[in-house]
């Protein structure tokens, strides 16, 4: 992408405010953006499951879930929710091996795409990237660890509370006094179930209870937390301590 491309300035600006690319020098960020091709994915569009094996994508706008599907039962689990500044697919970037997953855009998405080999070369050419890449990887690994632990040790109620708390802002809305929920605030119960390894019916029951207990409520059709303390009481230590 050249500097006069309509997406160029926005891409540089978005990356400037991300954990992964924010610490890089503006010049380094520009070299990366120039190496990439802008792509757009529509909400709910079917994306080639092998795309992550060929390209590295950087999310600029929108959000997506990365899911694995059991071919026998059709049950799926969402491994990651990706937002602006996140990269996909982190596994193939690291080891270059085939990794079949199903990315599902949950909103109209803008991404930067770069061939995987070139992305690896770029990382080698810019070792300063590792200063933010390694903590980013650590964060992702911790999330996966917490998720696996949660699957084994906690019931669905705790897992759901953990998920919501993980995405809840600790600063209340100045006018309403409730706590905004990021990324997952407009997901269907089916999608929430995918994120905690459960099924829609169980999540629906739990969400109803949380609303009845006035821990959660719906504002403009989106989920917000009304009582953060009560929600935290439902969670395990990892999620209480983070942020």
């Amino acid at each position, binding site marked *: 992408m050249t500097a006069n491309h309509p997406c160029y300035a926005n891409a540089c600006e978005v990356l400037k405010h991300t954990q992964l690319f924010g610490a890089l020098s503006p010049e380094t960020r520009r070299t990366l953006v120039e190496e990439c091709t802008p792509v757009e994915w529509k*909400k709910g569009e079917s994306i080639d499951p092998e795309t992550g094996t060929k390209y590295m994508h950087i999310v600029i706008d929108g959000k997506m879930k990365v899911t694995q599907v059991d071919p026998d039962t059709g049950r799926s689990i969402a491994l990651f929710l990706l937002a602006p500044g996140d990269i996909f697919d982190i596994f193939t970037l690291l080891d270059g091996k085939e990794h079949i997953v199903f990315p599902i855009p*949950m909103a109209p998405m803008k991404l930067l795409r770069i061939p995987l080999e070139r992305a690896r070369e770029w990382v080698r050419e810019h070792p300063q990237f590792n200063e933010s890449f390694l903590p980013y990887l650590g964060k992702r690994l911790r999330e996966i660890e917490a998720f696996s632990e949660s699957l084994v040790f906690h019931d669905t109620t705790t897992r759901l509370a953990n998920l919501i708390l993980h995405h809840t802002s600790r600063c209340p809305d100045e006018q309403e006094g409730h706590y905004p929920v990021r990324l997952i605030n407009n*997901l269907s*119960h089916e999608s929430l179930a*995918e994120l905690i390894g459960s099924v829609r019916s169980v999540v629906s029951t739990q969400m109803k209870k949380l609303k009845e207990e006035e821990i959660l409520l719906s504002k403009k*059709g989106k989920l917000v937390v009304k009582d953060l303390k009560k929600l935290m009481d439902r969670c395990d230590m990892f999620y209480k301590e983070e942020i």
Partner: protein
Amino acid sequence: MYEEEMRHTIAKLLQEKSTDEALEEAVSDIFGRALESSKKAGVSLESVVYEIMEGVEAGLEDSNRFSESYLNHASELIVATIHKEGMKRLACEEHKMHAAQHRFNEVLALESSYLKDTMESFRQYAVDKHHGILLTQLDRLEVKTASILRKMAERFGYNKYISLHKKRTPHYDR
């Protein structure tokens, strides 16, 4: 995205003094697409409905035609669209269910016939080769096979597809 589309479409249609049918069609069409994409993307219908209603209201306000009766009508159209799409999806799933049931019955009947045909084949072999002992032993095996077939029928509950007492052919009805 759909909120803006709804807003502009409503405002445009009202400015053009379009018919009520055209408005209804637009609301149903845009909401129908929003519904479909929300199902695919795993976004809650609650948020989509809210956005669409905001789009309708903004479109009405843009044209200075705001009235709650329009919103009431839009909500009825939304319910009708959800119902219509739901019925389509259910009909499709019902078709798949019948097809799967048919396939299941076929497999069950086929697997049962393998057992029965095998017994038949053993008997034919024993008769052709004059293996009297084998022929006698086959009676026991047949009892065992009948038990297997009964268990299959019990497990899957489709007795009508499995005949436990296969009619013997005259040559081995001694």
